[in-house]
């Protein structure tokens, strides 16, 4: 079962896309991605000396003619790509409830999963602290993933960093890793998460989901006591124009640091605004990262 936004038209649209990895990874089965494994494929890789038992069809006769030595062609095998999707389900993703940050994050994950599964890639989806899927193959697995994600709701989780690190350490197979979160946390925490994932030899992508409440909090309550949804910390603020301007400046500064880090760490990054998260927007966001093509 998939969310209502996954209409048949949208799904058909998604089938035209394919996930793209910036480098080759070893797969587990035949797929649509060039693997580091050498074998039978389409894309020529290199030559090696003929050995008894090699298929004579792979002998490069032209090279033989030139060198009077027998060489066989080696090809990159096309294997599947392991796609690891990590979704932040801490309390901040569910607050404010009407901004549907979690829903957008969920839809992003399912979109990526569908594209991957339809391209014969394998998908591992985890919601640190809440949910871990099995390694999914084939297009039908999307329904299982959709049903599982639809059942999830805010459990008041906090400390996404700790959960994400635990999850990251469980990833054994290289491939893609996509982290979907609001990333409203200190940069060092983000660096720690991605550092751990990088150590797993993963191609990293960060998708940030922000809602209007993150961009301009307390807009209708100029004098309020803001309570952190995860830590419960309280801050009393008077949100006048100057304060709002300063907040925007600080948010941009944080985002800038985030982008700088991702750039320096060669992590693909895209910002998705929850209040504008139409399917087209989602696709364009994913496309902008180069994740899907």
């Amino acid at each position, binding site marked *: 079962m998939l969310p209502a936004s996954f209409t048949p038209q949208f799904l058909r649209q998604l089938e035209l896309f394919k996930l793209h990895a910036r480098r080759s990874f070893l797969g587990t089965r035949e797929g649509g991605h060039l693997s580091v494994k050498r074998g039978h494929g389409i894309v020529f890789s290199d030559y090696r000396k003929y050995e008894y038992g090699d298929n004579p069809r792979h002998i490069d006769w032209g090279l033989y003619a030139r060198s009077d030595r027998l060489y066989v062609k080696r090809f990159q095998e096309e294997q599947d790509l392991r796609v690891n999707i990590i979704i932040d389900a801490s*309390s*901040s*993703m569910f*607050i*404010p409830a009407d901004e549907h*940050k979690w829903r957008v994050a969920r839809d992003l994950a399912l979109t990526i999963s569908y594209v991957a599964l339809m391209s014969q890639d394998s998908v591992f989806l985890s919601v640190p602290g809440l949910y871990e899927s099995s390694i999914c193959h084939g297009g039908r697995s999307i329904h299982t993933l959709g049903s599982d994600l639809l059942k999830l709701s805010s459990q008041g989780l906090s400390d996404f960093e700790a959960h994400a690190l635990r999850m990251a350490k469980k990833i054994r197979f290289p491939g893609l890793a996509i982290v979907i979160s*609001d990333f*409203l*946390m*200190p940069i060092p925490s983000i660096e720690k998460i991605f550092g751990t994932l990088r150590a797993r030899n993963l191609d990293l992508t960060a998708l940030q989901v922000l*809602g209007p*409440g*993150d961009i301009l*909090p*307390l807009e209708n*309550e*100029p*004098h*309020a*006591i*803001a*309570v*952190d*949804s*995860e*830590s419960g*910390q*309280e*801050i*009393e*603020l*008077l*949100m006048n124009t*100057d*304060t709002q301007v*300063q*907040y925007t400046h*600080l*948010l941009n500064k*944080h985002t800038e640091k985030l982008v700088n880090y991702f750039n320096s760490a060669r992590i693909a990054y895209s910002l998705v605004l929850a209040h504008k998260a139409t399917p087209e927007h989602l696709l364009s966001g994913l496309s902008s990262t180069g994740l899907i093509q």
Partner: protein
Amino acid sequence: MNLLPLLTEIGFLYPYMLWLTPVALGALVYAYLRRGRAKRIVVSSTFILQNLKRSGFGKSRFSPPLRFFFELLILTLLLLCAAGLFRLSANNRVALLIDNSISMDQRAETLSLLDLVKVDVKNYLESLPSNSLITIFTSAPALKIVDEPALRIGGALRAIEKITVQYAHDNLEQSMEALSNQSYNSVVVFTDRPGKESDKDSQNNLEESLQKVSLHSNVSIRTQTPNLRDNFAIARIALNTVGLENDSYTLTATVNSYSRTSQKLKVLLQGATLNNPILEKVEEKSIELRAGDTTQLSFDRIPQSMHGFKVSLESLDRKFDVLAADNSYYITTESKREPILLVSQFTPEALGLDKLKNFAFTRLEPTKLSSLTTIPDTVIFHRVVPEAPPSSNTLYVFPPSENRLIPLASKPVEKTAVTLWSPTHPVLQYLNVPSLNLTQVYPLALPAGAEPLINIPEGIAAYSQEHQSKRNVVLGFEVFPFEGKENRALSILILNILKWLKNSALEAGYFLASSAAPHSGSWDEASYISTEEKIVRLPSGEFYLPMPGIIKITSSSKNSLAAVNFFDGDESNLLNPRPVGLSAVTLSADSAQERRNLVAPLIFTLLVFLLLDMLFMNLRGRLSSIKLRTSNEI
């Protein structure tokens, strides 16, 4: 607008309560900071907001709404009430002390000195500023407020008409002392007494406390009638039973002259009976009294059928006797019966003492002497002697031979004669001592300090003692029963002894005018026979006697007559009135201004504000609900 005078007029009864101001103000501000419009809102993350606050932005500033100032006003009113805000009143507080003693009744023609003083008081009142608050006091018989304690000028002018002369001493010094240290701007005394010379000098020194106290002696009277201060008065009268017949009275009257010249006076004696309580002329005498002299008149052989007497005098030239109030004196036979305790195994009737009408004998049996708790003024020990001498005037008649208090010199003797007697002692006055027939006499041992009265060959038959104003007479022989003319010598002796012990002739007691008759609560009725004046029964039950005269008392269906008098030599001596000293009066430092407590109006204002606040909140709530309903309907 100059606020400085207003600020100097403001004060606080409990200024330390103002220390609560910063606490209260802080609490109000804190309440508004906490109350304000700060709403708790859960946000996804305060990560950026923390940085915002660290950079100094978003701090809540205290921006109070209009209601804050309204509540601040209410808080201020509460604090002012707690601190006891008062305003020093600008009222001019004046006390007028009017001497309404008997001397103020002196008259030139028809107007008394008090009437003229009232005119003086009115002129003074009309000279006062309009913001004056006046308290009028009268001094006689005691300091008393006339009408209300604080009167405006109009009220004071009406109140002084209520003042009347009292048959009493002026009580000025005590009254002025009572007025000391009270919150008056000035105290003005209206009296016929002059001020002391020392006070006149100190007035020239302009001492503030004395400046505020002024003395108004009515000089105008003296200038109008230079001879107005001459006066004659009856100082006292006494009624004696005469001799042995006991069937008539002698009345003696003491007349004082407070005049500068000799004057002829007419003295009239009037009498009334109990059954016909109307005063009728008994006798009239004319005397001439020298200036400043005192004389005694006697009216003899007054029939004992009369019970009440009035002696009055009249100067042939009225202008030499300006005070008529002291020209009369009253006496009755029943006004006072001297109590005497008889310690004897015989009753007063058995001893013939019931014939002595002017004494009230109560008997105590000798065996019950130890039970006596209060010793009366005069005691007769008849054939008995106590263990210890009592503290009273005492007559010992024929003491027993065995007693320790009055030792006998020798054994009793029979039929002895008097050899010596005291020629001047009052006890033996009018007595033919040798005619005393002494049948049995115990010769007495004369104690130290005693004066022998009657000597016999065997010793002392009678002696007297005086010690610490107490008098004793000891008779070594029997004098009872009292037989009157049947035994004249002994009867005279008994009468003289009782007279000497009581230290007076029968000066019948009287009630004091301008006072409540003591113990008159048991009377059923009382009325004057000598005047139309009414006797008022006080709430305490006692009867108030406003003036001298003879009153008829009905008690337990029995009628009696009693005398009411007043005489004071100082009041009658108009020639040389005693100066009154002003130094007795000192006014307190804060007497200049009266504190007007503003707490009550503050509380009233506070309640009005609170009511408005409640109404406003209620109205605001209703408007909000109307607005909400309206938006919902849309």
